[in-house]
């Protein structure tokens, strides 16, 4: 970028990578994944599934994972955003606060602005 004006021209097109890995414990577990309210996966899960995509840089990011499990089925989650580990490392910020789904409650994680959020959760210091 030669100057700030160039940044304004490209800002709305900038994206960051999202990579969500679903690891089933058990077979044929119905599973639905929404990213920013859009269904990106909705089928029975029997083997590890990686959902990779891009989201816009400046918008909030929401994740929702819902399974319909039979005991003792479960799904383990691994999430990276912008190649940074988010789940399981910061699973305490999800609702419920786990990386291991063993109930039919919807698992959600909401990120308002990724870089500011990540700055705060990783203890990078105060924002002016």
């Amino acid at each position, binding site marked *: *970028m*030669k*100057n*700030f*004006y*160039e*940044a*304004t021209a*490209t*800002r709305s097109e*900038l994206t*960051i990578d999202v990579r969500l890995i679903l690891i089933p414990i058990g077979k044929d577990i119905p599973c639905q994944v929404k990213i920013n309210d859009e269904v990106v996966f909705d089928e029975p899960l029997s083997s590890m599934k990686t959902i990779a995509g891009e989201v816009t*840089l*400046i918008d909030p990011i929401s994740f929702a994972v819902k399974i319909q499990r039979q005991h003792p089925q479960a799904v383990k989650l691994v999430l990276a955003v*912008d190649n940074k580990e988010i789940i399981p490392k910061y699973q305490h910020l999800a609702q419920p606060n786990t990386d291991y789904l063993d109930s039919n409650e919807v698992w959600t994680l909401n990120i308002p*602005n*990724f*870089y*500011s959020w990540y*700055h705060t959760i990783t*203890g*990078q*210091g*105060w*924002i*002016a």
Partner: protein
Amino acid sequence: MLEKTFCSSPWFHIRIDSGGNYLPCRWAAWSEINTPKHNNISNTSLIGYMNSEVMNAVRTKMLNAVPMKLCDYCYNDEKNNRVSGRQKQLLKSVITLDQFQNTLCASPHYEDFRYSDINYGRTQTTPVDLQIEIGNTCNSACIMCAPKHSSKLVKDYEKLHHLDQTLFPIYQIGKNWTDDKKLIEKFVREIGELNNIKYIHFLGGETLYIKSFYDICNQLIKTGQSKTISLGTTTNCTVANADLENIIRNFQHVHLGLSVESFHKVNDYVRYPGDINDITRNINTFLKLREETDLHLALRITPNILTIYHIDTVFEFMLENKITAESCNFLQDPKCLRIEYLPIDLVNDIRSKIDLIINKYNLKETNQTIINERRKDLIDPVINQLIFEYKHLLDKLVEPDDADSQRKDLIKFLKSFESIRKNNILTYLPEYEEFLRSYGY
């Protein structure tokens, strides 16, 4: 390229020098500071300075990737792979150099930058980070310091001026803005009106030796503003008193920078008339206070040709006491005290001593670059980073072309001070005898 020069600091930080002059940045080069056009605390408010001609011009240049002499200090640090003030300020806007475009565009300050871009550099932001210089009153006369920072050196330089007018220029003593009680009241009132100051860093002289430091802090405690403000200052560790403890306990957070060059008696020669035993005792007092409060401690070291020889004592103290060091620059002025004028055999001695420390504590170099060196969870990696940084800087030292003349100036410089202090460098650094004698000591 924007990522080489852009800094977000002018959107939230300003500095006031000891004369009350406003300046754009705590890292600004001194040559820029002495320009005559400055706004002063006596005629301009903190918020007024944010939209002054100077600050609007600085922001406009930032947004248009125009390099500024004002920023040379940071450019130089980055050229030498050191963490710069710019990087530290960018981090407060959540901008990192490794992902500059994305983090700039996602910054919580993006709209502030945009506003300035279309409004000739003006801003709607208010300062949240201040550096306040309260005068040059000091109880020390460190040889590497300058009269503008030490009232004691003013007197020494007056005595030594006739020996060498270049090495010991006469300093015109200006009035400290903090001598005016009305200006202190104005300053505290404005901070209250702004209501969003997060950090104030005070500089002297010796801050803890200056009454106005306590006056300002106690007023901020009285108004309750201290509870939301982090306070920082740097001390020569000759003062530790109950008033300071009260300040530490009443501000949201206190950061104390401890100026020490070496845990060896050579510190007494350089930081005259300090006594390393007293200084160590006071540092231990601060370390105890750290256990009881939210006090953050860091050493502030600026090694020179004399103190670099015992830098290993500093590293050992850091490792033993879990205390980091920051803003650690090799000294630039007086030029004859720069470490690059040290002969290679003495440099090799130092490198060997650093290697001993590295082996003793089993330190391993990492690729991690830590920008915020005040993180409590990263004390060990920050110490580690610093030790390897020094190791590499010493490895890369090249003897300058003017080594002979600067070494002769060094002898003249030391002998001049010794003529009024009645001391002798060889008492403190016998290892330097051959080197110093060969240049006329």
